[in-house]
């Protein structure tokens, strides 16, 4: 490693604030880029699974929704 200590790594001769904030923002955006399509896909599939259950008229799910509604 180039830096002698953790303190030096964080501080980076006064540039630490810039470097670390830039990396943090990038990391957040990368996580957003990769997670948002996964969440969208799961949402669509679970919506469709719900529709499917309703159209098949499964009695157990109806009872559940009634029970939770009252």
């Amino acid at each position, binding site marked *: 490693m180039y830096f002698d200590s953790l303190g030096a790594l964080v501080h980076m001769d006064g540039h630490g604030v810039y470097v670390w904030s830039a990396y943090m923002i990038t990391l957040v955006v990368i996580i957003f*880029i990769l997670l948002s399509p996964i969440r969208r896909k799961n949402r*669509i599939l679970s919506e469709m699974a719900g529709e499917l259950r309703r159209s098949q008229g499964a009695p157990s799910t109806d009872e559940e929704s009634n029970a939770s509604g009252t």
Partner: protein
Amino acid sequence: MWTFFHKLGSPPWLYGISGTILRYLLPVTLVALAVGMVWGLLYTAPDFRQGNSYRIIYIHVPAAVVALAGYYVMAIAGAVSLIWKMKMADIAMKSCAPIGAALTFVALVTGAIWGKPTWGTWWVWDARITSMLILLFLYLGVIALYEAYDNKAAAGKACAVLTLVGTVNIPIIYKSVDWWYSLHQPASIKFTGESSIDTSMLYPLLLTISAFYLMFTCALLMNMRAEILERERRTKWVSKLAGMESD
């Protein structure tokens, strides 16, 4: 050859094959991103003129390079959907826009943060920076235009036209540092001739650039998969898929 193109137009086939590709590509991408960033942050020497702030290069340059490359992909997909009316090309074009916008945003923000200790200012209306800002607006424009139409076919056509008109901006971005007197430094890596960057700094940079390309590919495939499901929700194969998920 033609059967391949035929398959490419088939949503279930593309959904299946992209799932298989992602199973291997996504872990590789995450490892490459982690190794590249840690290498750049921890194991390279500081720049003799800019000090440690130059470490931002390992995210700034890849984000900017892939944001531009993403625009090419979007423009080609737009042209294909306009000319051959391929449904998958339209899906690919739409899927590029949010990733490109996010990467352009990263390039601009990290550039501003890098500019403060290096140039003494967060922002200048410089040719390179302004043309990157226009790129961000083009990406956002495509997203907004898509949402503005109820008719998806009309939306796709309008977006494809906007995308193709916007390609004018791409050579301007590339050449801006040479054409105008600019604060922004010229390219350090050249395919022809000597690069002006030391190999100890070049290797981690090439790694993060590759990692960002891989990330773009993964995100594009994942966005396309979600979009395919959305558009094909009334079909049998998607119902079957949803039925399997709920069991």
